[in-house]
């Protein structure tokens, strides 16, 4: 057994030495592979081991021995490194080295709904796991040299395009053939949320990409269980399941999005980060995924003009300051991470940024691990690369000093192949010389400067600087007027050679070094500044330094709008504890209300009005990268809940207007839109924390001009439906399909365990899942609607297919069909007074809310607008003005009624014992234009306070000036960024495109 193993091993190594044998050779074979011995080296073997003065032996492409002391083979070629450092060469897992960039197709003004890719591939052009980087890899010396300069020896390369991107190949940066350079053809598979160059319409949003990916994962599982179809994309993906999966992000919020997918499909990802991990570090850590981070630290901004400097947001300033700490922060949180050189404007900044990260507290060991052992292990190549060990590839570089401080890379060896990066100057010619020649005698010359760039100066009164060039021991010295131009060699304390004078005659000369040059050695001192700037929640203006906690409060003597039977109570106290309302009454006895000893805050609310928080039934704030997936008539599979953006400053703005909760809706670009998310405006929290726990699921439907693309210009005339007639058919078609789908599953689930094994399960369809949920009253509809004809139509569809429309939103002609809505069981959530913006809102009237309410329809008033969402109290008041609705009823239209429509009225929407302490304190009757918010609480946490807001403004101002000051002092010579004002992306129902 042992013998066989040895033989096998021998065979293996023999083969590797003679790998080139598969090629015919032009000329004679070059079989001899000498041993190289690197001696007197400071060898960093790995992040945890080093040899102070050691010897490294390599032969062919392998390391054959490392030790501090050994007998060097006689035939070895000796490289005396004289104290230089050897490091294992770096590994970059995120590159497109040797690959052509994916090209965008010709722009077509007409939308492309179907794939134009020929072959049995996925229906969506953004899904192409079948692309294998190794099949299109072509070594590229020029690009390779940029990596080699930065110390890299191997890179993992993939085509950076699409959602399912395909596989990457691990390649050596040597000048050998592709056959030899590709050391692992399929080393990882790649994923992203960006559709890339695909000209196909779908996906047009982030949530669309997520849904597309989830459906694809389901489909690949299903594909494996059937044999009716051939799909090369699915087959390719199924073959990649064992590979490491690398998922690239656009921002720090993507971590939790990826985590959800990973959790659902039980995939472990490696996440390619974006450099802003610090802004959501806990979420990054919670995924427990390894991370690949770029060193893309932002350049300083040009702040010389105070006016344009004003355009740089505080969040950008904070990013500039904090980004270099990102690697250190990851290390502090014990997150496993690699470093990539991608994402840099200039690859030449890599080493300097790496050093900056060290200065900002990244331990050198962690940095080295992030560039060597960690990436090697992640792609299961740690038996070949990542450290200097016997048997591994001879991948290492030689540097003058510590690479993380000020070492300069001399040579980078890949698989035993030498690449000179910077020529090492071994000879130091500097010193004080006496020159003698035909024309001169005892002329004193000094040679100073640096070792590799010395400078000769004629000593004495003239102190002329001579042009000095040095290459090895070849020295050229010449003077400025051309009367002395010499070629000489340095040898044994003497520079001797010939010079040509002004008339062309040659003369011999010789300079003898009298004494050595004593350099004032600048000692490099590594100054570590590990005081990490404070990261706020969220990390921008108005962000919290620490998250507010639920308080125990008694509000005294307020006018309380209860929204309950008792109506508006004057001179009443309200007590809250642990996020809930616990008592309401006159002159509450705090000992009774809080029998235990806790810290209680008493708030004098005399002459103030206390209400529950406003709930916005229809909002599009706090959404990342696209509110519509309008690329299909039915997109029930997409979920706003996947793309919540907790950093949107409109959250804070709306808190300042008393809004505490919002239903984030998909847009209205298609008849069946996406699934909604119900959030509380928990400023500072994460996307997941913002969601209202256990809230019923909702979905957006839409009717009318938006879904039939009436106002989208002349090119968008292809997608079905283009008329209200077609819209009806889309609904019937969808629900008949859903019915059939549900039956298919029922039939399958009814099979015995044994029969199930033999049957092919139906293909799970996320779109139809959502529709089935509607049929089963597990998901509820809120439908964008205007004209009575279509409202009527959808109720007919619902009645005949067995579901109820929970809410008609906008519902501007609701007053014409209020009776029918009441009978159907639908509620209405409308605008107070919008009209005339489209043809279909010609008959929209501001009396609508009142008429609906009077008819017994649960009626809400919503915003659909980031600006209006912060003064919905004013909009509610319009129901009083126009229709004569009572003030209490009007107030319910922005509180209790939306809570009912959203099925959260058991927790929210009124001031009632046991309900959530979502409380707003107003200066005045909340329906008055003069009412201002004093405080807004969400779950008993004070998230807006007019006084605290003032402090935050001051703090933000000081923080801004502090960072601008720091930026002015920044010595970094990198190109300054131009300040640019930021425009908000504000979504409305009909905002179509995003990605």
């Amino acid at each position: 057994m042992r013998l066989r193993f040895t033989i096998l091993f021998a065979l293996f190594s023999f083969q590797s030495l003679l790998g080139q044998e598969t090629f015919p050779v032009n000329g004679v074979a070059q079989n001899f592979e000498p041993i190289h011995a690197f001696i007197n080296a400071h060898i960093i073997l790995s992040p945890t081991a080093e040899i102070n003065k050691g010897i490294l032996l390599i032969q062919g492409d392998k390391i054959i021995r490392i030790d501090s002391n050994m007998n060097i083979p006689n035939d070895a070629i000796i490289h005396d490194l004289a104290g230089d450092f050897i490091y294992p060469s770096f590994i970059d897992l995120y590159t497109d080295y040797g690959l052509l960039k994916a090209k965008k197709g010709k722009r077509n003004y007409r939308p492309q709904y179907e794939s134009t890719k020929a072959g049995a591939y996925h229906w969506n052009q953004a899904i192409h796991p079948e692309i294998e980087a190794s099949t299109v890899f072509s070594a590229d010396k020029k690009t390779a040299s940029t990596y080699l300069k930065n110390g890299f020896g191997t890179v993992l390369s993939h085509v950076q395009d699409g959602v399912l991107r395909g596989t990457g190949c691990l390649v050596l940066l040597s000048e050998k053939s592709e056959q030899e350079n590709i050391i692992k053809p399929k080393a990882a598979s790649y994923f992203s949320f960006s559709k890339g160059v695909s000209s196909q319409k779908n996906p047009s949003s982030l949530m669309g990409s997520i849904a597309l990916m989830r459906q694809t994962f389901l489909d690949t599982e299903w594909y494996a269980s059937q044999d009716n179809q051939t799909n090369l994309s699915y087959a390719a993906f199924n073959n990649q399941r064992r590979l490491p999966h690398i998922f690239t992000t656009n921002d720090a919020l993507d971590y939790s999005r990826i985590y959800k997918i990973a959790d659902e499909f039980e995939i472990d990802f490696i996440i390619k980060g974006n450099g802003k991990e610090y802004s959501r570090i806990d979420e990054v850590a919670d995924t427990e995924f390894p991370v690949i981070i770029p060193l893309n630290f932002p350049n300083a901004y040009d702040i010389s003009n105070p006016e344009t400097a004003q355009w740089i947001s505080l969040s950008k300033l904070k990013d500039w300051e904090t980004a270099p700490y990102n690697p250190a922060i990851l290390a502090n949180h014990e997150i496993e991470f690699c470093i990539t050189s991608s994402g840099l404007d200039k690859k030449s900044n890599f080493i300097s940024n790496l050093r900056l990260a060290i200065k900002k507290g990244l331990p050198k060991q962690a940095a080295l691990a992030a560039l060597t052992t960690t990436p090697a292990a992640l792609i299961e190549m740690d038996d070949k690369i990542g450290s200097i060990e016997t048997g591994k590839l001879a991948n290492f570089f030689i540097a003058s000093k510590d690479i993380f401080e000020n070492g300069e890379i001399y040579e980078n060896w890949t698989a035993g192949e030498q690449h000179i990066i910077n020529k090492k100057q071994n000879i130091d010619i500097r010193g004080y010389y006496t020159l003698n020649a035909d024309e001169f005698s005892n002329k004193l010359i000094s040679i100073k400067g640096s070792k590799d760039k010395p400078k000769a100066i004629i000593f004495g009164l003239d102190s002329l600087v001579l042009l000095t060039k040095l290459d090895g021991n070849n020295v050229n010295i010449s003077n400025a007027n051309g009367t002395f131009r010499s070629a000489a060699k340095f040898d044994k304390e003497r520079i001797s050679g010939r010079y040509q004078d002004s008339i062309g005659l040659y003369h011999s000369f010789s300079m003898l070094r009298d004494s050595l040059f004593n350099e004032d050695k600048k000692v490099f001192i590594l100054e570590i500044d590990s005081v990490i700037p404070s990261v706020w929640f969220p990390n921008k203006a108005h962000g919290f330094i620490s998250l507010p906690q639920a308080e125990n409060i008694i509000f005294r003597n307020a006018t309380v709008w209860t929204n309950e039977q008792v109506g508006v109570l004057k001179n009443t106290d309200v007590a809250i504890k642990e996020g809930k309302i616990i008592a309401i009454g006159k002159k509450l006895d705090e000992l009774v209300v809080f029998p235990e000893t806790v810290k209680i805050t008493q708030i004098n609310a005399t002459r103030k009005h206390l209400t529950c928080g406003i709930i916005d039934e229809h909002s599009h704030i706090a959404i990342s990268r696209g509110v519509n997936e309008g690329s299909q008539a039915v997109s029930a599979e997409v979920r706003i809940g996947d793309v919540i953006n907790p950093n949107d400053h409109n959250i804070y703005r709306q808190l300042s207007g008393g809004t505490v909760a919002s239903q984030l809706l998909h847009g209205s670009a298609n008849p069946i839109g996406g699934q909604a998310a119900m959030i509380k405006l928990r400023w500072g929290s994460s996307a997941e924390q913002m969601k209202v726990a256990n809230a019923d699921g909702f979905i957006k439907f839409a009717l009318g001009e938006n879904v039939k693309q009436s106002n989208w210009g002349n090119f968008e005339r292809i997608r079905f439906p283009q008329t209200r007639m077609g819209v009806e058919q889309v609904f019937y078609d969808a629900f008949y399909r859903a019915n059939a789908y549900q039956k298919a599953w029922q039939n399958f689930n009814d099979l015995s365990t044994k029969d199930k094994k033999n049957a092919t399960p139906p293909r799970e369809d996320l779109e139809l899942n959502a529709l089935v949920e509607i049929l089963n009253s597990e998901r509820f509809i809120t439908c964008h609607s205007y004209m009575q004809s279509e409202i009527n139509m959808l109720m007919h569809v619902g009645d005949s297919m067995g579901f109820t429309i929970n809410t008609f939103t906008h519902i501007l002609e609701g007053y014409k069909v209020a009776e029918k809505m009441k009978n159907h069981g639908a509620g209405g959530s409308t605008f107070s007074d919008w009209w005339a913006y489209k043809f279909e809102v010609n008959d929209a009237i501001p009396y609508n809310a009142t008429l609906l309410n009077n008819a017994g329809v649960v009626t809400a008033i919503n915003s659909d607008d980031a600006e209006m969402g912060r003064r919905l109290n004013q909009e509610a008041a319009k129901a009083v003005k126009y229709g004569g609705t009572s003030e209490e009823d009007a107030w319910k239209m922005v509180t209790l009624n939306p809570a009912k429509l959203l099925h959260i009225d058991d927790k929210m929407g009124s001031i009632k014992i046991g309900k959530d302490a979502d409380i707003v304190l107003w200066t005045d009757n909340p329906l008055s234009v003069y009412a201002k918010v004093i405080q807004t609480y969400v779950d008993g946490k004070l998230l807006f306070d007019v006084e605290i807001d003032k402090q935050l403004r001051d703090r933000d101002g000081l923080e801004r000036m502090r960072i601008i000051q720091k930026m002015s002092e920044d010595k970094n010579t990198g190109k300054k960024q131009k300040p640019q004002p930021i425009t908000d992306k504000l979504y409305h129902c009909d905002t179509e495109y995003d990605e």
Partner: protein
Amino acid sequence: MMNKKYLPLLIALLITVGANAQRPTLFMGATAHLGNGEKIENAAISMLNGKIGMVADATRIRIDPTAFDTIYRVHGKHLYPGFIVPNTTLGITEIDQVRASHDYRETGAINPNVRTLIAYNTDSKIAKTVRSNGVLIAQVTPRGGMISGQSSVMHLDGWNWEDASLKSDDGIHLNWPSSFHQSGWWAEPGTINENEKYNESIAQLKIFFKKANSYANSSGLMDLQMESMKGLFNGSKTLYMHANNASDMLDAIAFTNDFEITKSVIVGAEDALKITDILKENNISLILNRVHRLPNSEDSPVDEPFTQATKLQEAGILFCLSYEGDMEAMGARNLPFSAGTAVAYGLDYEDAISAITLNTAKILGIDKYCGSIERGKDASFFISTGDALDMRTNNVEKAYIKGKAVDLNNHQKELFKKYKNR
């Protein structure tokens, strides 16, 4: 000077009028907000022949009921000068998404000669919903290009544009080139970049204005564009410069100084608070952006748009409120409430009234006729049963334009009636 031979005739005419004269109409007891910053709690206000007559404190005078044709007792109610919405497309657009209804943007960059009033739709369904909230006058303004055209101040009632016009062609609207511009399109706003063509655009404007100035002083062939610009140089027209950025505003001010344009107004003025000293020095008045807007940037204080008016008032700048922006025509009926919001954030109530009445009239150059409750001015005012700046109480009961009662019914009220009593 009047020729003396007509004098007897004139006297005779006056006597005739006196004899057959209609007696004035009297409004008794309202809280009158005069528009000039003053308020009379219990006012007696009369109108005759389309003009305001007496404006008095009812507690201080004796009223002879026989002297009036009609007396409206409006105690406890509020009387306001007709609110004025400046800088609006009201009347020249009807439905935002229906192109056929748009008459506010001519093609091309330079159109000083085009005039909004001739496209003004006196039967706009939208205008009727606007006036029933107390907004009775509008400066109908063109949009787009560098020089959009000429606005006219219109009454929101009339048989045709001629009799609806309060001031025809009151000024020329110049969209001051922005020193930065945004890439992308409305649904996909990209980054904002510095406008590299800024200086070029300004140079182009200068050449155009120089030419116009020269034309104004010469007698060449008729040139419609040049002809329309004349008024800027003789003070008969106002130059409305739409600019928001501080540096753009400063350049715009310097520009008008260079050309000695006596009447100029900045429209938009987002950054006005940064340059109040210069605005004052140059006596520049402002038509502000909609109060109900989002703060300028993510760093801005959340109430920045709400407090701007208060701070400008404190700085002593003459300004008025507008409603430019998304859905501005139908939204014009909310102008009073935007003034209300400014009050909530510190503006004195009567100053807020001025910001949508007399200030606006002064800025548009129509204060001789309207903008305040004052003897001799047009009887364009309204009565609301409650505070008209608060949507909770705004309820316009009567409105008059030049003494003529305005029909406060509208399409929406009709539908309300129809479906309420179904």
